[in-house]
């Protein structure tokens, strides 16, 4: 396992000094049965449809990606994570095809129509308004399972 203490100095210092959010109460919800789940992905990769507005460097907002969208670009400000993998295969960061297959195989109930992308370099505390908008859209389309995938 890669421990923070084993990381090179610049990255280690940055990651060690991040102020982490704390929560008074853990949100524990009872899951739906596997074959009834409606799943939506939330990514921090700052990906968006090609003609969407690029994310600003400390963006508080989000972009919506439909389950059929594949022509996506990334406007994340940070460069410390590997981009060569997603260049080869979108599913390595945003597994729409895998979840579509799992829907067909009845491993999940359904893949939601809408999925969401945020700028992972920004402070999540500033995203509350946007997060609430996303939650409302998810409720509107019956999403009961959120798959959070950082970059």
């Amino acid at each position, binding site marked *: 396992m*890669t421990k923070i203490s084993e990381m*090179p100095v610049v990255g280690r210092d940055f990651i060690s000094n991040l102020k982490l959010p704390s929560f008074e109460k853990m949100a524990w*919800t009872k899951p739906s049965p596997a074959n009834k789940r409606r799943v939506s992905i939330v990514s921090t990769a700052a990906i968006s449809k090609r003609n969407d507005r690029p994310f600003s460097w400390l963006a508080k907002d989000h972009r919506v990606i439909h389950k059929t969208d594949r022509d996506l670009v990334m406007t994340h400000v940070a*460069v*410390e994570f*590997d981009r*060569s993998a997603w260049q*080869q295969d979108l599913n*390595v960061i945003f597994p729409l095809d895998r979840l579509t297959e799992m829907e067909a195989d009845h491993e999940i109930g359904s893949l939601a129509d809408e999925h969401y992308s945020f700028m992972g370099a920004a402070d999540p505390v500033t995203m509350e308004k946007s997060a609430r908008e996303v939650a409302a859209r998810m409720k509107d389309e019956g999403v009961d399972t959120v798959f959070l995938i*950082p970059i």
Partner: protein
Amino acid sequence: MLVGFVREHIEAIGPARALFLDFPMGRGMGKPNDPDFQKRVIRAAFKLFEKTSGPVLEDFPETIPVLQGRMGYALPPELVLNADDIGDVDELVASVSKEMDALRNDYEAAVLSRGRTTVGASQLRIDDLAPFIAQFVRGEFPKSPRKGLPAIPLLKLAVEDLEAYYTETRTYRDKIDNLELIGSWFWENTSAGRLLLSLEAVSLVSSDRVMLQIVEMSLMAPRFWSNGPLPGSSAAGW
């Protein structure tokens, strides 16, 4: 359900259900073009829904090793250009152009094969990327040709488009999935990499606060995982 790469952070935050992935950053489902591996990650994550109380944090049993604790490619700290070392920028741009022409057939084949490309976030033409970047290397501050996006944010997207053009081509042409090899090839062995290191050198002595911030925060050249900050900077931007 959360998956994540930094176990200590997941422990500290305590989400209801989380799966720790011992992978390089940028590879949440592990391996590109490996649907079986990707589904094993998803199934392991979703299996945590069977737990009746939490918080739950489990480790995905398969790992993808990283090099010396770094979660992505990093430039060698000693590979730094000085603004005085840049030389003739026109010659450098011509060399990049020649390099890009040599890659073009394979780039187009890669796009055809994959049915997509990630190049184009800047919305500049591929042939305009290097000349646009070169203006900054010469110390000019061109007006942004893209409405609603200032020149420096556009510059950053142009840098990423240029790199993606090369790396999409190489991963396809040579069937390579090795982030260290791809990173060292582009940044240490191509004229495009040298153009971007020249841009870094110019930015480091720039009077423009944002240009300086880009290098101080390793937002252009990959130095976040280097064994030490960029010489001449303190990495204090972070």
